[in-house]
């Protein structure tokens, strides 16, 4: 197992003592098969116990360890050391306030995510005795890709629009709205559209496409948002040109 000495530059910010963040460099002996999260854990265990960061599963499922690695939004557990040079810079996710070191304040995302009603709203209530809601494989495929989202928020860290206009509902929330709207068992689209089809909803998106490029689960949020735009435009034309047609 080959070992390499890496200079790990970590953004540090202590709200109790610092007026602004600064970088601190740690020299870390890294094994070639390590990921950046391993290097951070090495720092925490051996060099500096005060470094703060979020992580849990170490297998790109929990979505906790999102951070900027050499300026790119990445999961630290999926960023292999062998893909980088001898100097690696880690910063908290862009576009989010910094709580402490690599930990960000994500309340804004959580509130936005909840606002799109990310759950099935059946078209009509059905008693349990009526049986299950059936779905064909083709109907499942329509939205399956969007169910893979792990809420890691890397898409928000990549989206310049969210950085410039923090009111923007953002890629993951709108993709999740699209996921439920596309579900044949769901009837809640009208309720979600009140939040999604607004200026600060999907129309704030200018299709930079960065969200899809950084998504570790290949959800393609940018694609979802454009599809939401197309559907919302059709709604508008139906409403204004053909008011007699029911949606």
């Amino acid at each position: 197992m080959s070992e390499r000495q890496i200079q790990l530059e970590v953004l540090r910010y202590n709200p109790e003592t610092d007026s602004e963040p600064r970088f601190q460099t740690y020299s870390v002996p890294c094994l070639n098969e390590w990921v950046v999260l391993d290097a951070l854990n090495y720092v925490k265990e051996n060099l500096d116990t005060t470094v703060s960061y979020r992580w849990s599963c170490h297998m790109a499922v929990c979505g906790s360890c999102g951070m900027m690695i050499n300026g790119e939004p990445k999961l630290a557990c999926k960023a292999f050391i062998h893909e980088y040079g001898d100097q690696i810079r880690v910063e908290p996710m862009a576009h989010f306030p910094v709580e402490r070191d690599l930990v960000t304040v994500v309340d804004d995302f959580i509130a936005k995510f909840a606002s799109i009603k990310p759950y099935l709203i059946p078209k009509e209530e059905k008693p349990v005795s009526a049986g299950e809601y059936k779905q064909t494989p083709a109907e499942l495929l329509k939205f399956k890709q969007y169910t893979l989202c792990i809420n890691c928020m890397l898409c928000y860290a990549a989206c310049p629009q969210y950085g410039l206009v923090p009111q923007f509902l953002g890629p993951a929330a709108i993709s999740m709205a699209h996921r439920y709207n596309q579900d044949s068992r769901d009837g809640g689209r009208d309720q979600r559209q009140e939040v999604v089809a607004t200026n600060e909803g999907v129309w704030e998106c200018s299709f930079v496409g960065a969200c899809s490029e950084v998504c570790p689960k290949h959800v393609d949020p940018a694609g979802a948002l454009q599809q939401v735009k197309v559907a919302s435009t059709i709604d508008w034309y139906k409403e204004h040109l053909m008011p007699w047609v029911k949606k």
Partner: protein
Amino acid sequence: MGEEMSSKPYVREIPKTTWFLRQARYKRYMAREVTCIFIFAYTFLLICGLGALASGPEAFSGFVESLRSPLGVLFNLAVLIMTAYHSVSWFVVTPQAMPIQRGEEFVPGNIIVNAHYGAWAVVSLIILIWGM
């Protein structure tokens, strides 16, 4: 959720005018957006042509003459290149915006992109034949 963890989270400001210089993908996005200005400029030129046509044969022949000038040719060439870039940059993202599901499978993205190139070629050909 909702409970404040610290009283002093640090907000890192985004440079309002130079933000797109931070990443190559932002620059590519800006290139796609900025090239639309050339389409606007060409549309303006067409309106000027219509104006000249309405003013009479002399004005129109003057307009046509100006198109043949080196500056006119250079402008047309620049518009052609920029419009082609703009169109191609949109064509490559069409499969994301309009996926087509046939039965259980989605139509491969390259078929959707190539259909756009095909339509572009057909329309261009019709205009070329019509203009000859």
